[in-house]
Each structure stands twice: as C-alpha cells, then as structure tokens.
C-alpha cells in the first residue's frame, strides 16, 4: 500500500514539474496537437510575426513622416498645391514591395508544412500517436492560417492607414491598380492565404519540399497574373457619353479619382470607334477623318472610386472561397492517402 502511494506521488511530481517547465516563459499554454504544430513550426511562425511587426513599425513611421508634411498644407483639409512637393517614392516603393509578399510568404511557408513531414517520415511518427489524421491536418492548416491572417491583416491595416489621407486623389497610387488595390483592405490577406494554402496542397501532392516550393512559385505567379485580369471586372463599369465634339475640353465630366478603363469616339449613329482610329499626320487630315465618320463626341467607360471597398471585399471573398476549397481538399485527400 505504502509502495503504491509512493509511486503515485513521484509520478505526479515528475508530471507537474514537466508541465511547469513547458508553461514557463509564455503566458499562453498550448496543449495537445496545438503544442506540437506550434513547436514544430515555431521558427517560421515567429519569423513571420517578427517581420510583420517590423513592417508595421516602418509603415507607421512613414505615415508620421507624411502627416508632418501634410500638416503644412492644413491636413485634414488639404489646401491646393500640396501635391507639388509631395514625395511619392516611399508609398510607391512600399506598394511594390508589399505586392511581393503573398508570393514570398506562400513559397516559404506553404510547401514545407506537409511535404517536410512526408519527406522526413515524421508524418508516420505523428500518425502513430492517438490523434486522428484529420485533427493533425486541420491543426496545421488552422494555425498557419491564423498566423498568416494576423500578420497580413496588421500589415494591410498599417498600409491602408498610411495611404488613406491621400487615397481619394488620383495623384498618389491609382486605386484600381495593384499597388493600392492589392495592398489595402482584405485583399492582401486573401491573396496571401490562397497562395499559402495552395502551397500546402502542392507540398502534400509532391511530397518533396524543394520541388513543391518551385511549383508553388509558379502557382503564385500564375495567381497574380489571373488576379490582374479579374481585378477590374469586380466593379460595375459605368459608361458616360458627351456630344460636344472631340476637341479640347470636350471630355465628359467624371467623378474625382474615377478609374478610366477605355475611351471611344461616339458617332452620330451611336456606334463606337477606337480613339486612335483617326490618328493622321496632320490636323486637317484628322478632322476630315472625324467628319467622314460622323464623330459627335466621346464615350468613356470608368469605375468610380466609391466602388473600391465593395470590389475589394467581393474579390477577397472569391479568393477565400477558393482557399476554403483547397483546404477541404487537403483534409479529405490527406485523411485517406497521406503517409
């Protein structure tokens, strides 16, 4: 009897000390599969979180620099002429660099997530324990998604905040172009998530980390190309016409910061002609061409700036639906065939 008591107490002491040791240093105590996935990928997760923190700090600092300048022009009610000495370089450079992040994060974080375990055999080790494979896959995807969403949301919010004082003008970053559209609001989060989860699926199918990274790079670039075609078709195109001829100041009035998709000559019969179709060598020849075609004015297709937010959310929800589809595929496929 006394022996049994002794054994029990020793056992619980060693367990308690181990538990205390594990919880030391961090307020949050993970357990079970969450602990394993965090421990296995903690280097990647901490790198991402630290990089996001530094990026946010830089973006916030840049915003302060810009606000200091704009204060000289009466921000938040900007006086005219603020554009003349405005330094566009930081915003343009940041937009260019941030645009690469979905590709970089997707290639570095996605493929190793499962391919690493399949390559080294540790998938067998984990699956020989008492936890189901669905749980394992779901935890891997879930924790990675959480870290990516936190990081991308923070960076996107900081960039949006920086750009917002000047975003309603067409002077700094065109809102419908990648630099602004893909780096603000929900779009960078969705683009990064889709690239990462796509990389996870590619890694699972190829079972080789390095090869999967190369293929994921191709996937990420293809996604960016496809997205560039989708972007403007997310909005409702508005067509406006004018009937004042095509001379100086004859263009129809557009709302501020409208994104012009295309301009056409409008003929008397209501047909549209490409605006380059009367590009003649002389003014006289050009007018003769216009008269012959009976051009009476302009027809302009544009998307107003007011649609930006709804376009971003529509696009992001399409990307997220694709992401969810791929994640479901990873779990269903992996449940049966992995290892």
């Amino acid at each position, binding site marked *: 009897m006394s022996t049994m008591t002794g054994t029990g107490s020793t056992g619980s002491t060693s367990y308690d000390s181990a538990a205390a040791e594990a919880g030391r240093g961090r307020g949050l105590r993970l*357990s079970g599969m969450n602990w394993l996935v965090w421990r296995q990928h903690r280097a990647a997760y901490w790198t991402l979180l630290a990089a996001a923190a530094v990026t946010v700090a830089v973006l916030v600092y840049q915003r302060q620099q810009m606000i200091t300048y704009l204060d000289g022009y009466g921000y938040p009610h900007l006086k005219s002429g603020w554009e003349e000495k405005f330094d566009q370089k930081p915003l343009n450079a940041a937009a260019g660099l941030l645009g690469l992040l979905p590709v970089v994060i997707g290639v570095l974080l996605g493929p190793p997530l499962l391919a690493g375990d399949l390559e080294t055999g540790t998938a067998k080790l984990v699956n020989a324990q008492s936890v189901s494979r669905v749980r394992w896959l779901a935890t891997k995807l879930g924790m990675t998604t959480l870290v990516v969403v936190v990081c991308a949301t923070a960076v996107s919010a900081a960039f949006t905040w920086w750009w917002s004082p000047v975003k309603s003008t067409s002077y700094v970053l065109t809102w419908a172009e990648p630099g602004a559209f893909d780096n603000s609001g929900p779009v960078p989060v969705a683009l990064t998530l889709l690239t990462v989860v796509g990389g996870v699926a590619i890694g699972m199918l190829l079972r080789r980390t390095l090869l999967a990274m190369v293929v994921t790079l191709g996937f990420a670039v293809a996604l960016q190309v496809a997205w560039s075609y989708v972007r403007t078709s997310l909005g409702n195109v508005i067509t406006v016409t004018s009937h004042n001829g095509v001379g100086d100041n004859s263009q129809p009035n557009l709302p501020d910061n409208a994104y012009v998709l295309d301009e056409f000559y409008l003929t008397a019969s209501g047909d549209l002609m490409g605006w380059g179709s009367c590009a003649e060598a002389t003014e006289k020849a050009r007018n003769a061409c216009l008269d012959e075609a009976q051009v009476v004015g302009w027809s302009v297709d544009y998307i107003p700036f007011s649609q930006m937010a709804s376009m971003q959310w529509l696009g992001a929800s399409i990307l997220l639906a694709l992401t969810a589809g791929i994640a479901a595929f990873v779990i269903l496929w992996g449940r049966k065939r992995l290892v």
Partner: protein
Amino acid sequence: MMSYETGYGGPAETSAIEARGVGRKYRRGWALRDCSFRLPAGRICGLVGPNGAGKTTLMAIAANLLAPTTGTLRVFGAAPESAEATRRTAFLAQEKPLFRRFTVAETLRMGRELNPGWDQRAAEDIVRAGNVPLDAKIGTLSGGQRTRVAFAVSFGKRPDLLLLDEPMSDLDPLVRHELMGTLLAEAAERGTTVLMSTHMLAELENTCDYLLVIAGGRLRMAGEVDELRTSHAVLTGVHSDGRTPPELAYHTVVETRTSGRQFTSLIRPDGPVAGGPWEASTPNLEELLLAYLRSPEAPPLISPSSYVAPQAVAA
C-alpha cells in the same frame, strides 16, 4: 473483449490482429496479396520474409498508415482507422522518424500531449537507461540513441499492440539485448502483443513464440513456433543418383537438398515418418524458415490457431 471462433476448433482467444484477404497494390504491382490470418493477443510474434516481401506494408496497414486495396484487417476487433484501434496500437517505423530539432524531453512531451494513456515514467526510464540527456537535440544523437528515444515514444503510449519494423537493425549487441529485455518484460507484465519484423533469425529464436512468414507478398506460414516446428520433420538419408527414396512422396515435401551422397529433406509428415530409409528429427526454427523462404512453391502452412476464413463471415 471480442473473441472469434478459429474455424478449426482451436481455442477462442482474443485476436490482436485479424486479417481477411488483405492485399495492397502499388503502382508497381501487388506488395501484399490475399493475406488471411489471426494473431492471438498476448503473443510475441516474429514477422519474417525477404526484403520487399510485404512486411512493412502489412504493418503499415495494421498501424493505419495505409489502407488495404482488398480485404479487411481488424485490430482487437476494430478497424485500424478507428479511435480505439489507433489508441491501442503503437508503431515504430523502420527509419525511426523523429523531429530532429526537438530535444529528447520535447519528443517525450509530444508523446504525452498526443496520447491519453501516456506513461512518462516508463518512457523516461528507457531514455535514462541509455544515458541519453533529456535536453539533447535529437539531431545530435547517435543512431542507437535515436532508436532508443523512438522506442521510448512507442512504449510510453502503453499500447496493447506494438508493431516494430526492424527495430534492432542499427543497435549494437549490448543495447539490443537490453532493449529486448525491456520489451519482453513490459510485454509479459502488461500482456502486450508484439509484432516484430526482423532479419535476425537468432533474435527470433530467443524472443518470439509466434511466427508469420511472408514471401513474395503472400503469407507462407503462420502459427506458434513450437506448433510449426513439431509439424515438420527433417529427414536425412542416402540418395541414389540424385533420386530420393520413393517413400518421401507420401509426405508434403517443402525442400530437398543434396550434398555428396546425402540428402536432407524438410517435410510436413502426412503419416508416420519413423521406419523409412532415413533419420528423422525435428527442425529448429532456422532450418524451418530457410526451407520455406528458399521454396516459394511449397504450399503455405497456416496453423489452426492463426486460421481465419479468407472471407469475412457474418458477424
């Protein structure tokens, strides 16, 4: 627990593994075909066969790492993918995979976090017996130390069925002896069923009381070691011009080898063997295994205690 009739009227014990027509096909062809057997609970079973015979495939199916292409396999009456079966089964893969960047303590913690019945003390004891420091990274350990940690993870799970794929291949004789001792003591104490694939016939002789022999993806022999030995006989005699005595044909001949004027046959007697023109003896395990592995055309022998009907009978 569940028990099954053995069909031949053997004792109705609990089956640790019960396979009915299990087969697994890869792109290159069948790795395992038409395997039907039962492994009674509480046995230490050796799984023997040449390289590529399908041993790892069979274990992987029992460990829920692979799904069989045909047939069904049950672990203590439950499907391998069921929560009950995964909890009761531990699998040590041949390459002993571990996370290289984890410390030994973290590796054991993984076992604790992922297994409800984890026995930290048993796992730590195995690690400490090899003087493996708990704070060492797995990547810095020697092959033998790593195997020891992998063993500790499998033992710590407190499984009812322990599947070991070539567990001792990279251990020195001393460590092998010590770990084998631990294994047998644990198994005896807790009634653990062990299925262990190995190439080392000497290891089998000392440890295993049950045997499964696979060659070419098919089950060649299954049963208790003593039962299998005593149901065979080695006959040694003099041949005349390469022809063995005609009386040999009354029995099922597994293999005949001649050297000089002598012939040696391993047979399955279909009647009394005494009195023929030969000396009869009971084969040892090594003779028996070598004969079966060398003669793929010999008819398989599934002993009553391991027999199941190939098709699943209605429950």
